């Protein structure tokens, strides 16, 4: 099912069932709120709740969980599955029909308003998901809120990468990627990748050094990863085993390529994806 079809199905479910706030509107929580926010409005010490607190009463709390019929949770799960694994809130629009008073007990229900995308944003490609939450006292609508989040796929350099184990045998390689170099282990005349503790013929006295590869090569083999979702990756993505012109083969993600254009023999060049100060991953781009 496409994102659009899933969104249409969740929208058609309409408002979720109403969730009753854990506690009625009460002075103790209001007092905590005004103290933390630093709001000196005297009304709030006289039994009137700050209108923005309407959302506070129905927050899930420390061990709370989303209701099973919560449309935001359902939509976020759909987008997770489609590879849009990160989320950031972008807009909140609250309307207060009246102020609440101590003793009133609110309930809330949420409906999916719209899902718009995919859009290119500064954070990556993503979808804007807008929900409408309505708060009631009995059957009286007292406030509502449009809430919008961007559910996005961070670009390939983003965090969340699985980290390689760096050993004394491989340290030079990862130092190289940080410096923008593909370093190949060399035992005399023999190049070896992945690097190991001994030369292929097993001479225990041999010591390796390394050479810097040109970064040019061709796709020797590849897979297109469709499922499951991988943190920080937009699906599908391509992992290519590349035969470098120096004669060794090396694995990495082939970024910026349409899976349909990838084939054995495709010329590629090395690129480097900085994850953070300690880790840069080697990857490939199509040579154009």
């Amino acid at each position: 099912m496409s994102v659009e079809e899933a969104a249409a199905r969740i929208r058609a479910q309409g408002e979720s069932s109403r969730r009753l706030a854990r506690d009625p509107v009460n002075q103790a929580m209001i007092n905590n709120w005004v103290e933390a926010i630093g709001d000196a409005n005297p009304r709030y010490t006289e039994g009137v709740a700050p209108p923005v607190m309407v959302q506070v009463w129905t927050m899930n709390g420390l061990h709370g969980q989303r209701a099973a019929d919560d449309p935001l949770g359902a939509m976020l799960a759909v987008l997770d599955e489609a590879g849009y694994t990160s989320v950031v809130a972008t807009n909140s629009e609250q309307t207060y029909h009246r102020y609440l008073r101590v003793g009133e007990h609110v309930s809330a229900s949420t409906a999916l308003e719209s899902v718009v995308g995919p859009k290119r944003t500064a954070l990556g490609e993503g979808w804007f998901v807008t929900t409408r939450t309505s708060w009631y006292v009995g059957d009286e609508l007292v406030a509502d809120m449009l809430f919008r989040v961007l559910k996005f796929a961070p670009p390939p350099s983003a965090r969340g990468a699985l980290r390689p184990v760096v050993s004394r045998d491989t340290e030079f390689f990862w130092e190289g990627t940080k410096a923008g170099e593909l370093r190949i282990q060399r035992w005399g005349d023999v190049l070896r990748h992945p690097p190991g503790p001994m030369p292929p013929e097993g001479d225990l006295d041999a010591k390796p050094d390394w050479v810097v590869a040109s970064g040019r090569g061709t796709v020797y083999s590849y897979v297109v990863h469709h499922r499951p979702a991988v943190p920080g990756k937009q699906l599908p993505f391509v992992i290519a085993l590349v035969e470098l012109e120096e004669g060794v083969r090396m694995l990495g993600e082939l970024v910026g390529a349409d899976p349909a254009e990838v084939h054995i023999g495709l010329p590629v060049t090395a690129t480097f994806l900085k994850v953070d100060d300690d880790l840069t991953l080697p990857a490939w781009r199509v040579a154009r």
Partner: protein
Amino acid sequence: MTAAGTELPELAFDVTPTFVISTALATRDFQDVHHDRDAAVARGSKDIFLNILTDTGLVQRFVTDWAGPDALVRSIKIKLGVPCYAGDRLVFTGRVASVEGRVAVVEVTGTGQLGAHVSGTVTVELAA
């Protein structure tokens, strides 16, 4: 009588870790990125940061500090920008965009060291 173009008195304060945590908990928002620095860093943030319910609350406070306790806030629409981390200094500025009868629309911006953290409009019915 308030007129369009009126500037609101600025509100500036230091966003201490205590402020970030106490406001998150006072709004019943227990997401770890608002109280656990290690968890926030592990998720790619520089530090713990303000939650959205607090932003809305600060915008409301900023406007009612100016409009007075008898004003009625009708709506708050905010757009979120760069995060506001513990250690930041937040400055709220605002001006009245329009007035119709007793209803004023106020434009508000909360700026931190990284830039515009929150911006939006508040519709408020001023006291007679």
